[in-house]
C-alpha cells in the first residue's frame, strides 16, 4: 500500500459499507490466528483475509514491528489487536469496518488515568506497596499507597500492565487505555501456602529501584512469621532488627536503635495511631499480635513528608482488614502466648471485620514452676501477664468511599520478685483509628483520619508501711487529612494537614493502705498542641531522573496550666517563677522539615539515589536506663526542653538481578541530631516537678554503611544484611564534655535470614546474627566509705563488651492438605540460641552479696539454648 491508499480505502469503505453492525464489533468477531516471524503488516493482511475488517496505516509507522509469532484459537479481533500493539508505540481506532492504526503522538498532552485498588485474591486484603507498571514506549511506574490505592496517568495507548507484590503471583496483561478507567486488581497465589506458587512467582521488587525513597523496608507478615524467635512467638519489632541499620541496645528486647538514634526516636504507628510503648513484658515482646497485622514498613531517616514527629524512624504497622471472602478462625498455642483471630466478610467482597486476641502463658507457667521447685522461694505471687486485642471493621461505602475503623488495646501486669521485689508495674496502650478514604476523581485520593492514643502506667510500691501507687498517663488525639493528586504523568503531589492535642499527667501518687506513710502527691499535667501541614511532589524528568521534594511544617505550643521556674547558674536553686494559666501558651516552637530525594535510573534494574531530610521531635522520653521502663514518662517540649531535630544525608545504589530473584542495595548515611537529652549523674527523677534541673542537653551524630542482599523467590529465600556504623553523643556535663559512644553503638552488625521449603508441607528456617559488643560504663576503681566498698567511674560507655552472636533454627510442618477439610494446622519447632552461647545481656560491678568490702564484676546472660514447640491452626 502507498500513501494514498488510506484515503482511497476510507472512501471505498464509506461507499461500500453494507455489513451488519454485529460483524463490525471487534470484540465479537472471533478468529483463529497463527503467525510465525511475521511483520505487523503481514499480521494485518492475515486478519483482513479472515474478517471483513480493513486496516489503514502509514507503512513507516509499523515498519519496526516484526518477528511476531503466536497461535491463537477462538479469540476476538480486539484481543488480537491488543496483543499485537501492546508494547509498541501504536494504537488503533475503529471506524465502522476500518481499523486505523496510528502512532501515539509524543506531544499528546492528553493523559488518561488508570486507577483502582489492589487486593489479594485469597482474602481480599488491600495490598500496600504493590508495584504497578505500565510499559509502552515509556514505562510508567507507581506503588499502591497504604490503602492499596494506585493511580497512574499516561498518554492513551496500548500497554503491557504489570502488578506485583512479594509472595504473590504477578499479574501481567495487555491493556488498551483510551480513556480513564478503574482497574481493581486481585493478585493470586500466596507463596507460603503453596509451593507451586513460589516457583512460578515472578515477584520482582521494582519499588526498591524506582521509588524515590531511601532507607525504607517493608516486611510482610509471612516473612516475619518465618523468622525463628525466642519462645516461638513471632515478633514484628524483633524481626526488623535483622535489617541493615536497625539494631537493639539489649538482645532479646524489642527496642530499636535506627541509624544511631535512641529508641524513643522511633514513631510506632498502628493504623496511623501512635503507640507510645509498643512493648510487653518490659520490652521483651512487641505489643503487636502478628495474627492481627498485615504488614510493617520502616523508614530509616528521610521520611516521606506525610510522616513526622520523630527523629530516627517511622514504623508503620497496619492491621489486617479481615477476610472479605470467607469466614476464618486462626490461632496458635505457643510456649509464651496463645492467639485467636476471627475474621470474615460482613457483606461479601464489600466489607469485612477482624477481631484478634492474644494472652500470655508466661505467668501461669511461672507460678506452676513453684510446684516443681521448692528451692525457688522468690516466685510466690509472681505475675507476668499481658494481653492484647485488635479489632477492625472496614465497610466499603461506595465505589468512592471506604471506611476503616480499628481499635487496639493491650495491657501488662508485671511483678517478678527476681527483678524487683518491692514494686509491681501495670501498663497499657489503647489506640483508636477512624479513617475515611475518598476517591475524588481517578487521580485524586484523600484520606481523613481521627486518631486517639492513650498510654497508662502505674508502679505499685510494696514497701512495708509505705505502699502506694504511682500513676502516669498520656492521651493524644489527632485529626488529619492526607491527599494524593496525580497531577499529570510527571507529577504526583501529596499534601495534607492536621492538628494534635496531647495531655500528659507525669506522676500521681495514690496511697494504698489507709495508714500508709505516704500521702497523695501529683505533678501538674502537661498539655501541648501541634498544627502541621506538608506538601511534596514526586516529579519525573525524562525517563531516568525522578525527584521527590517537599516540606513539612509544624507549629508546636506547650500550654498551661504550668509553672515555669528560673534557676541560678548551676540550677541548684529557684530564683524566680512564672505561672501560666490554663490554655495559655507557655512556649511555642516552629519546625520546618525540608526533605528531598533524587533517583537516577541507570538501567531498568538498577538505580542510585541521594537524599536529605530534616526531622523534628517535640517530645522526649525521660528514660534513665538502656531498655527503659514502662513507667518512663514522655515529656513534651517546653520552656526548658527544646525540640530535638536532626539532619540526615543518605545515598545508595540499588539493583535487582536475575529477573528480580535477587535484590541488592548499598546505602550510606550521615546524621546529626541536636537538643538530645540525658540525665545528670545520679539524677533524681522520682516525682520531680523541676525535672529540667536533672537533665542535660547535647548533640549526637552517627554514620554508617548498610548492605542488603535479598532473595525474594524460589524454594529457598532470605537475606543477608551487614551494617558498619558508629553512633556518638556529646553532652555538656557528661564524660567531661567529650564525645562518647552510645550504649547501642555496635560497629559491625551482620544478620542472615534463610528459609528453605523442603516439600509442600515441610519448611526450614535459620537465622544467625553477629554483632560487635555494645558499650557500657565500668568503674575505674573502688574506695571504702563507712566500712563498705563503693565504686567510682570515669568515661561514659568506655568499655566495649565482647561480641554477640547467636543461631536460631525452626522447622515448620504443615498438616496434610485435605481439600474436604477446612482445618489447616501446622507445628512449629524452633530452637533459640542453638549453640548455647552465653551472650552478655548486662554487665555490672557491685559489692559482693556476702561481704560489702569486696567488689566484683558479673555478667548477666539470657537463656541459653531454648527449644520451643508451638501449634498454629486455621479453619
Amino acid at each position, binding site marked *: 500500500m502507498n500513501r494514498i491508499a488510506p484515503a482511497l480505502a476510507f472512501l471505498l469503505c464509506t461507499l461500500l459499507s453494507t455489513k451488519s453492525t454485529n460483524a463490525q464489533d471487534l470484540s465479537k468477531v472471533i478468529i483463529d490466528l497463527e503467525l510465525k516471524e511475521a511483520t505487523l503488516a503481514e499480521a494485518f493482511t492475515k486478519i483482513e483475509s479472515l474478517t471483513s475488517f480493513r486496516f489503514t496505516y502509514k507503512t513507516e509507522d509499523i515498519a519496526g514491528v516484526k518477528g511476531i509469532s503466536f497461535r491463537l484459537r477462538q479469540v476476538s479481533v480486539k484481543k488480537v489487536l491488543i496483543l499485537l500493539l501492546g508494547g509498541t508505540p501504536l494504537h488503533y481506532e475503529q471506524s465502522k469496518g476500518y481499523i486505523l492504526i496510528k502512532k501515539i503522538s509524543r506531544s499528546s498532552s492528553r493523559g488518561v488515568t488508570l486507577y483502582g485498588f489492589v487486593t489479594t485474591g485469597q482474602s481480599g486484603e488491600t495490598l500496600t506497596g504493590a508495584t504497578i507498571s505500565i510499559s509502552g514506549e515509556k514505562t510508567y511506574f507507581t506503588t499502591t499507597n497504604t490503602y492499596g490505592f494506585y493511580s497512574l496517568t499516561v498518554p492513551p495507548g496500548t500497554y503491557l500492565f504489570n502488578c506485583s507484590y512479594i509472595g504473590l503471583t504477578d499479574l501481567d496483561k495487555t491493556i488498551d487505555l483510551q480513556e480513564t478507567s478503574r482497574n481493581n486488581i486481585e493478585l493470586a497465589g500466596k507463596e507460603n501456602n503453596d509451593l507451586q506458587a513460589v516457583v512460578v512467582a515472578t515477584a520482582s521488587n521494582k519499588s526498591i529501584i524506582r521509588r524515590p525513597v531511601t532507607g525504607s523496608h517493608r516486611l510482610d507478615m509471612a516473612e516475619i512469621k518465618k523468622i525463628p524467635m525466642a519462645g516461638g512467638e513471632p515478633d514484628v519489632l524483633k524481626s526488623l532488627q535483622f535489617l541493615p541499620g536497625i539494631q537493639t541496645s*539489649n538482645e532479646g528486647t524489642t527496642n530499636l536503635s535506627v541509624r544511631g538514634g535512641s529508641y524513643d526516636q522511633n514513631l510506632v504507628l498502628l493504623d496511623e495511631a501512635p503507640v507510645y510503648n509498643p512493648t510487653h513484658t518490659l520490652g*521483651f515482646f512487641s505489643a503487636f499480635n502478628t495474627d492481627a497485622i498485615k504488614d510493617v514498613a520502616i523508614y530509616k531517616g528521610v521520611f516521606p513528608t506525610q510522616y513526622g514527629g520523630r527523629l530516627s524512624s517511622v514504623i508503620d504497622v497496619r492491621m489486617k482488614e479481615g477476610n472479605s471472602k470467607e469466614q476464618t478462625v486462626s490461632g496458635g498455642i505457643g510456649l509464651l502466648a496463645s492467639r485467636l483471630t476471627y475474621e470474615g466478610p460482613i457483606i461479601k467482597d464489600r466489607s469485612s471485620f477482624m477481631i484478634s486476641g492474644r494472652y500470655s502463658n*508466661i505467668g501461669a*507457667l*511461672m507460678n506452676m*514452676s513453684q510446684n516443681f521447685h521448692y*528451692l*525457688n522461694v*522468690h516466685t510466690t505471687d509472681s505475675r507476668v501477664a499481658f494481653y492484647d486485642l485488635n479489632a477492625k471493621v472496614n465497610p466499603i461505602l461506595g465505589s468512592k468511599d471506604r471506611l476503616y475503623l480499628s481499635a487496639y488495646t493491650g495491657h501488662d501486669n508485671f511483678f*517478678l520478685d*527476681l*527483678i524487683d*521485689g518491692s514494686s509491681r508495674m501495670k501498663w497499657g496502650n489503647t489506640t483508636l483509628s477512624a479513617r475515611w478514604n475518598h476517591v475524588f476523581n481517578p487521580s485524586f485520593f484523600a484520606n481523613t483520619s481521627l486518631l486517639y492514643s492513650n498510654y497508662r502506667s502505674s508502679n505499685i510500691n510494696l514497701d*512495708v*508501711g509505705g505502699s502506694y501507687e504511682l500513676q502516669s498517663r498520656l492521651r493524644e488525639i489527632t485529626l488529619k487529612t492526607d491527599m494524593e493528586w496525580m497531577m499529570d504523568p510527571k507529577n504526583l503531589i501529596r499534601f495534607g494537614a492536621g492538628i494534635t492535642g496531647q495531655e500528659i499527667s507525669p506522676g500521681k501518687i495514690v496511697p494504698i493502705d489507709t*495508714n500508709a*506513710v*505516704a*500521702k497523695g*502527691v501529683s505533678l501538674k499535667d502537661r498539655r501541648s498542641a501541634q498544627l502541621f501541614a506538608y506538601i511534596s511532589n514526586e516529579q519525573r524528568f525524562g525517563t531516568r531522573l525522578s525527584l521527590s521534594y517537599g516540606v513539612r511544617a509544624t507549629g508546636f505550643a506547650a500550654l498551661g496550666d504550668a509553672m515555669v521556674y528560673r534557676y541560678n547558674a548551676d540550677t541548684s536553686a529557684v530564683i524566680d517563677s512564672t505561672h501560666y494559666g490554663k490554655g495559655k501558651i507557655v512556649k511555642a516552637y516552629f519546625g520546618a522539615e525540608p526533605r528531598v530525594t533524587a533517583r537516577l535510573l541507570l538501567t531498568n534494574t538498577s538505580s542510585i539515589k541521594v537524599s536529605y531530610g530534616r526531622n523534628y521531635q517535640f517530645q522526649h522520653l525521660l528514660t534513665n*536506663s538502656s*531498655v527503659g521502663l514502662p513507667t518512663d514518662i514522655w515529656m513534651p517540649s517546653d520552656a526548658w526542653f527544646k525540640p530535638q531535630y536532626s539532619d540526615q544525608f543518605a545515598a545508595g545504589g540499588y539493583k535487582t538481578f536475575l529477573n528480580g530473584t535477587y535484590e541488592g542495595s548499598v546505602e550510606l548515611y550521615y546524621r546529626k541530631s541536636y537538643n538530645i537529652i540525658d540525665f545528670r*549523674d*545520679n*539524677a*533524681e527523677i*522520682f516525682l520531680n516537678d523541676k525535672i529540667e534541673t536533672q537533665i542535660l542537653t547535647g548533640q549526637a551524630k552517627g554514620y554508617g554503611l548498610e548492605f542488603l542482599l535479598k532473595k525474594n523467590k524460589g524454594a529457598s529465600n532470605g537475606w543477608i544484611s551487614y551494617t558498619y556504623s558508629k553512633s556518638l553523643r556529646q553532652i555538656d556535663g557528661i564524660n567531661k564534655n567529650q564525645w562518647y559512644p552510645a550504649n547501642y553503638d555496635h560497629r559491625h552488625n551482620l544478620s542472615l535470614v534463610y528459609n528453605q521449603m523442603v516439600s509442600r508441607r515441610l519448611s526450614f528456617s535459620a537465622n544467625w546474627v553477629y554483632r560487635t559488643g555494645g558499650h557500657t560504663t*565500668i*568503674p*575505674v*576503681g*573502688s*574506695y*571504702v*566509705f*563507712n*566500712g563498705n*566498698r*563503693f565504686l*567510682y567511674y*570515669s568515661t561514659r*560507655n568506655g568499655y566495649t563488651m565482647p561480641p554477640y552472636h547467636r543461631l536460631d533454627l525452626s522447622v515448620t510442618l504443615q498438616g496434610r492438605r485435605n481439600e474436604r477439610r477446612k482445618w489447616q494446622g501446622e507445628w512449629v519447632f524452633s530452637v533459640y540460641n542453638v549453640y548455647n552461647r552465653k551472650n552478655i545481656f548486662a*554487665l*555490672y*560491678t*557491685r*559489692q*559482693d*552479696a556476702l*561481704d560489702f*568490702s*569486696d*567488689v*566484683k*564484676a*558479673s*555478667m*548477666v*546472660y539470657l*537463656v541459653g539454648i531454648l527449644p520451643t514447640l508451638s501449634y498454629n491452626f486455621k479453619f
Partner: protein
Amino acid sequence: MYMRSYYLISIIFLFAAGCTKDFNIDPGKSKQLYVIDGRISNLEGPYLVMVTKSANSFPTLSGGQDNAEAVTGAQVIISDDMGPTDTLRAAEQRDVRYDPAISADRGYYVTTKFTGMPGHTYHLQVRIGDETFQASASMPASVPAIDSVVLKKDLVADPSGLLGDAAFAYFKEPQDENNYYALQLGVIYDSLYDRARWVYASSWIFPYYIFDDKTLPPYVNGMEVLALIAGAVQDEHARFKPNWIIPYDPVQVRLFALTRETYEYLSALEKQFLDDGNVYKPTPASAPGNISGGALGLFWATYISSKVVLR
C-alpha cells in the same frame, strides 16, 4: 552462682533474670585517689575522719573487714564557723569504738574537744604530704523528734516470724519545707555518742535507710527501719530488709536530718548496691562527693534525734 535455683525460671521466663556469672574486667590501672570520710553530729564526740586510699583493681581482696589502704600521718583540722578549731589526733588502735578486731593503724583520726551544733558550718582541711584537701558541711538546724519506736513482726519480709522484730519509727514531718532523712537502727549501749561502741563501720551492713519527704504525710505513722545487709546466700540482689532485733537487746533508732548534698551522696552510694546489672537501671555514676582537691568521699554534718527501746 546459684544457677540451680534459677534454672527452671530461666527456661520458663526466658529473660527475667537469666543467669549471672563472674566476669573479668580490666578497669585499667588508674591513679589511686585519697578518700576522706568524716562526720560531725549533735551527739557527743569524738567524731571520726577516716583517710584512706582507693583501689584501682578488683576484685578487692577481702578480709571480711574494712580493707581500705590507710593513710597515716595526715594533718586533719576541723573548724566550726561559730566555734573552735580542732586538730584531730590519730585514733587509738584498740579503741572499742573503731572495731577492735583490727589492730593496725587504719588512717582513723578523731576530734579532741568539741560537740557539733545544729545550724553551724564545719570546715575540714586534710593535709597529706604537700597536698591539701578541703570540705565544708552544714548541720541542718532541725530534726523531727522520734515520738516512739514500736518493735513488731514484719510478716511480709519474714513470713515465718522467726527472724525477730522489726523497728518502726513514728514522728511528725514538717510539710512546708524539703527535708532529707536517714534512719538507722543499732544495738547500742552508749547511745549518747556519735560513734557508739559496737556501731563501728562494718563491711556487712550499709546501715542508713535514706529517704526524702516527698511522699511523707504530716505524721509518719510507723516507718520501718531498714538496712542493706550482707550475707543472705539466696539473694543475688541486695535489698533492703529489717535489721532483725533479737529479744532482750537494747536498741536505739536514730533519725538523721541530712542536707541535700549528703542525701544525694548517700543515695548514690545506695544505688550502687541495688545495681543488679539490670538494664532497667540508670547508668552507674560516681557519688558526688564534696572534697575539693581531687579526693573521693564526703564530709558531712547531721542533726540526729534518737529513741532507745529497751526490751
